[in-house]
């Protein structure tokens, strides 16, 4: 898959896109397929999933049995390369007195889409109008119904398995869009039996994994009804994607294209159009503007030569990731824009949000000595629990909901699988220890709550006046504060998970009351969209209020951060923005 041109092939482009992950990938795909000349600028290195994915490699083949290290925070085989919680030479700081925000940054083509959890949940009608419902946070300048067609198209294009359950604020997809969900695993069925009694819904999860081959003819015509050339390019590429082989961890990436990664699903057909150039190892410093205040392209640093370069375009899309896109705007200072580009409202960097995360692990005696069988499936969850207490929200003491992800089964042993065996067996060793390992293997279930955080004034990022990174670019300084809505929500998660585990006859073995700010890796906000230029950075189409040929298509425009993991919504929203951008180009407005 030759993706990279290595250099610009033309002096100027119709569109310059910063970033190649979910938002940048879908933007590049759509615009190149429509015939625009596009340059994509990626800060990380080129990455080739077909050659670099350790699909079936064993822990014993990796250093430290593949365990987590500061260099490979999610384990050796995790697809993330060149970064993680820290990127060498590219620090960020925490404001004195604030809680520490940690910032996940891969430096690679395709960004986080290479290792992400593949969880693809739609935001529901309530999620777009949260302030109207409970007075907190802000409303989006669009409704669910406006985004629904884009959810359909995104799901059809990338391939998502799941089911339509007709539950409150948990939208169905249009008929024929979803792939069938895989059968539940044993521990998932056992959990469902208990949750049925507790009134907690357990339904098929929605993951961007091909449970069967995509219908390339049908999908390509649906995505590109009026563009036979684009449909053919998509159909040709879609046939190179294979269905899930029900083995290996999606977090390693997928060399057969059975799950969604920008690098396997979006960038190859985009490059095949001949309209997309990609340059990697190119760290964008700022958006340049002309004397009329229009964007003219981006300044970037070529990391290999450490030289300053410029990429010119008549439109600029930032999709560098929330916070990073804000950083670029804040750094784009000029006489005309003294506080940074598109920052007349002073809101760039503001209302940074993450997901509320709380977890427990429990040992379930009923699962001991379960007859051995293959429980791997699609690696991630086949079932999950969507938020179910909408009617009781006013009694809960916190404003918004969470969903529950749960994991278990006899999965491939790693360094942690038997870590607690000594304590659990009161100090067994020898043959007795080996017997106990057989007995307990696969009897643990972990429950993870992933909840909605409400945006607040005290959680934001800004430029640190005292520090630049190794490329000479001012770094971000993070401010953070959880509100009681999040801490009380985490308490509710702990109570609920304990109740489920104990109702199953199990015992909680470990707890994480609340993960660190940023640890959910769902940071969104910082350039929010809105109806009023005084209180938002972008208009209802994710177009800058002040620079009309500047758009943002990552998670930065998010106005709220529902418990629905953001990637699918980033792509649906980016699709809508690209449609608007192309229409405006046709109308010669940009």
């Amino acid at each position: 898959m030759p993706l990279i041109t290595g250099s610009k092939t033309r002096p100027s482009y119709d569109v310059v896109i910063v970033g190649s992950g979910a938002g940048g990938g879908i933007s590049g795909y759509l615009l190149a397929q429509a015939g625009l000349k596009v340059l994509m600028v990626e800060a990380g290195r080129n990455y080739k999933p077909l050659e670099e994915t350790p699909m079936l490699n064993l822990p014993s083949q990796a250093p430290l049995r593949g365990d987590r290290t500061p260099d490979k925070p999610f384990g050796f085989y995790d697809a993330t390369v060149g970064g993680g919680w820290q990127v060498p030479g590219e620090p960020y700081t925490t404001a004195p007195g604030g809680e520490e925000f940690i910032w996940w940054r891969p430096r690679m083509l395709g960004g986080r889409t290479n290792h992400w959890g593949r969880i693809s949940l739609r935001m529901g009608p309530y999620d777009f109008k949260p302030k109207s419902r409970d007075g907190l946070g802000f409303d989006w300048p669009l409704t669910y119904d406006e985004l629904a067609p884009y959810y359909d198209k995104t799901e059809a294009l990338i391939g998502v398995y799941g089911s339509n359950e007709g539950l409150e604020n948990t939208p169905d997809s249009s008929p024929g869009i979803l792939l069938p969900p895989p059968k539940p695993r044993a521990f998932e069925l056992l959990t469902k039996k208990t949750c049925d009694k507790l009134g907690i819904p357990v339904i098929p999860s929605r993951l961007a994994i091909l449970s069967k081959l995509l219908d390339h003819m049908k999908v390509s015509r649906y995505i590109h009804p009026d563009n036979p050339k684009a449909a053919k390019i998509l159909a040709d590429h879609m046939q190179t994607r294979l269905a899930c082989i029900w083995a290996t961890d999606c977090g390693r990436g997928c060399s057969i294209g059975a799950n969604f990664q920008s690098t396997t699903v979006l960038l190859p057909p985009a490059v095949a159009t001949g309209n997309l150039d990609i340059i990697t190892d190119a760290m964008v410093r700022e958006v340049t503007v002309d004397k009329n205040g229009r964007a003219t392209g981006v300044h970037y640093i070529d990391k290999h030569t450490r030289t300053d370069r410029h990429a010119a375009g008549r439109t600029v899309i930032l999709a560098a990731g929330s916070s990073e896109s804000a950083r670029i705007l804040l750094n784009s200072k000029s006489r005309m824009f003294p506080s940074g580009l598109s920052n007349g409202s002073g809101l760039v960097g503001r209302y940074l949000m993450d997901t509320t995360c709380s977890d427990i692990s429990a040992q379930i005696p009923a699962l001991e000595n379960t007859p051995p069988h293959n429980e791997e499936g699609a690696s991630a969850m086949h079932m999950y629990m969507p938020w179910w207490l909408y009617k009781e929200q006013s009694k809960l003491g916190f404003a918004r909901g969470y969903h529950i992800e749960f994991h278990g089964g006899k999965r491939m042993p790693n360094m942690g699988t038997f870590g607690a065996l000594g304590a659990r067996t009161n100090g067994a060793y020898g043959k007795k220890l080996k017997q106990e390992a057989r007995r307990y293997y696969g009897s643990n279930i972990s429950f993870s709550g992933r909840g909605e955080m409400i945006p607040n004034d005290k959680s934001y990022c800004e430029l640190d006046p005292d520090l630049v990174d190794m490329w000479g670019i001012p770094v971000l300084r993070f401010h953070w504060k959880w509100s009681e809505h999040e801490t009380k929500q985490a308490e509710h998660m702990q109570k609920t998970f304990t109740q489920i585990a104990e109702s199953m006859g199990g015992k909680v073995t470990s707890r994480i009351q609340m993960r660190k700010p940023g640890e959910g890796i769902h940071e969104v906000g910082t350039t929010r969209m809105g109806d009023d230029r005084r209180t938002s950075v972008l208009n209802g189409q994710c177009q800058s209020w002040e620079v009309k040929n500047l758009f943002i298509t990552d998670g930065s425009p998010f106005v709220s951060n529902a418990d629905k993991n953001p990637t699918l919504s980033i792509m649906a929203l980016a699709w809508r923005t690209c449609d608007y951008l192309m229409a405006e180009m046709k109308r010669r407005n940009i």
Partner: protein
Amino acid sequence: MSSKLVTIGRRDALKRIATVGTGAAVAPHVVLAADPPAPPKRPLTDPDLVNPVIPWEKVLSAEELKTLAVLCDLIVPADEHSPSASKVGVPDFINEWVSAPYPTQQADQQTIRGGLAWLNTESHKRFGRAFADLAAAQHHQICDDICHVPKAKPQHKVGARFFDRLRSLTVGGFYTTPEGMKDVQYIGNVPSASFEGPPPEVLKHLKLL
């Protein structure tokens, strides 16, 4: 989905994965960076995931490894299901572990090296010989005193904390080998055309049938 498509897809899948390297076909242990030919140096944040190397030197002495092997086999001895820990290279893995340049592993190095020395001191005090040279009953006499931190006497707490950490590393190292996985009857990491879900005997075991 027609069965023909599945078959083609699966064969194609296996072919593609084969180019990356399958678990079963590759030797279970990684090679040292010092082994020729030396691979090009890559940042620790961006290692070669398909052909891994261990980019650090191992620090434990031959004497330490000898004691470690005896202790690892007391923790995970051979039985009718699987070989002992030392037979599948666990002492060497622990050497790799404690030699790594990360905070967790550096702390473990102190715990393990200090613990091995503590153990030999204790052996000499009790029996006048190094731990590796003791008889089986003597091994157990010491191990029984240090196998459970909450129950260990104050004078054995240091040894007990060492034993607990070593037990975690030993079972971690052991059950991540193909032999260890076979022992607990892990079934997976095998490409297949469909996912069938739990068989009836599993549902019966869980009272779901």
